[in-house]
């Protein structure tokens, strides 16, 4: 379900050029304002902001568990094994969470805290972040262990804010360009037929002997 939502503050006078949040089912939040729960039992996945030049994903949004896990992995640079140690679950569990399997409230809370923490200390490079989070601090503490212990504030305090450079804005590809860049559908990719099906003309126009010298 796609919903266009206007805040009460904006009202009917909202200009079209102002970011207009649109969500795909669930809960809407407008950056800098409170969240609006629409369907409390349904997790939303996208918060798109419409601007004069099209749509973009809103910044600083509160993501679903699936995308939070993937973002945590992407920013932290942690391996799946390291991520499992953060939650005390198997790799398989983590993969299923990321594929949409419901996650317990406690793990959800831990996940969102972890994500908020790594976002805050993000140095803009997954490898650097991983080294930072796995390395021993002067006081002997290891940020990773603090994250496991849910001591998020201590990680923030010790590592300080990140220094991420803003990514340059990129215009979304047109639907046409995205469509022809989409690979062939999986069912077509697993059904390749290799027999020869063209109509053989079978007509020889000429044959010329080739003389070759073979090296022994």
């Amino acid at each position, binding site marked *: *379900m*796609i919903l266009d939502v206007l805040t009460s503050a904006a009202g009917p006078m909202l200009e079209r050029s102002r970011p207009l949040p649109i969500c*795909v*089912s669930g809960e809407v939040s407008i950056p800098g304002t409170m969240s609006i729960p629409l369907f409390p039992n*349904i997790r939303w*996945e*996208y918060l798109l902001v419409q601007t004069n030049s099209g749509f973009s994903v809103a910044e600083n949004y509160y993501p679903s568990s*699936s*995308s939070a896990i*993937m973002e945590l*992995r*992407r920013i932290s640079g942690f391996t799946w094994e390291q991520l499992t140690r953060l939650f005390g679950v198997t*790799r*398989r569990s983590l*993969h*299923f969470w*990321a*594929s*949409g*399997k419901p996650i317990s409230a406690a793990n959800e809370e831990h996940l969102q805290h972890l994500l908020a923490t790594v976002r805050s200390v993000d140095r803009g490079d*997954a490898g650097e972040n991983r080294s930072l989070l796995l390395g021993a601090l002067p006081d002997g503490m290891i940020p990773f262990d603090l994250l496991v212990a849910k001591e998020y504030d201590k990680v923030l305090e010790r590592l300080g804010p990140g220094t991420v450079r803003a990514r340059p804005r990129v215009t979304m590809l047109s639907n*046409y*360009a995205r*469509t*022809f*860049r*989409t*690979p*062939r*559908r*999986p*069912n*077509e*990719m*697993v*059904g*390749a*037929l*290799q*027999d*020869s*099906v*063209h*109509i*053989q*003309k*079978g*007509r*020889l*126009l*000429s*044959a*010329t*002997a*080739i*003389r*070759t010298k073979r090296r022994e």
Partner: protein
Amino acid sequence: MSQLDKDSADVQRIDNALAEWRQGDIALGEHWFTHVADPSKALTVESGQAKGELQSITSEVEGLVVLTQSCDIVRSCVKRPFLEVAPLVKVATLSLKQIERGLRPAYALVPATADAALVADLDRVMTVEKAVAVDWKRTQGCRTDAEIHAFAQALTRKRARFAFPDDFTQLASALQAYLQEKHDKLTKEGSALRALREIRVRAAPSWDASKIELFFWFIRDETDLERKPWDSLLEAWLKLMPIGDHFTYINGMVVLLEDLTAKDYVESDPLDLDHLSGHDI
């Protein structure tokens, strides 16, 4: 005769003649194609009509299609003297549809000749010097970005298609059968399969290791307005591929393209397999 001087008028004439040609363009007036064969061990109807041992066999075809990349076509013939061409061949309507859907990687659709059911036979490639093409009548083969891209993709797939190990092909056969059987059904499985844009598989530490961990990326479309039960579907798909002595760990995830890192993408291969009944054809 000696090689043309790079500043000669002939070189200029060849370069000018080729300046408009692009990959996928066709020469409908050229009905010949040459390959090398040994008629004493003939493998084709045409070489069976010749005699002797090693022969340059020229046979009749419906036309030629240029496979060389556009930038190499227009590069001076002094630096790039060759063109690669494939023969245009006629196919039945059903085969044409299959080629259009990418089900026959040995052929490439040429949009300009699709109405005449003429396609590029990628199994055969002939190299000609650019001077040979100077008098060819050019017909534009692909007209839009999408057509140009699709033709280039067909060439890439023909040459760069990853050859999965036989036991992997065997392992994946149940998933493959499931995909082919359920895809068009009006069921939740069919709907979910139609919402997948790509399946990729990663083998660690490598495909030639004695024990391999497999990871499947089921990449879904961005829009999932019906909220499909991806986790239970994933579980069902993974159950189709039991672990064994060689593939000791099999797992996967349903993700969006933006969830994958570039590393995930380059470390995996698209699941591109022959039709189950087509292995021995």
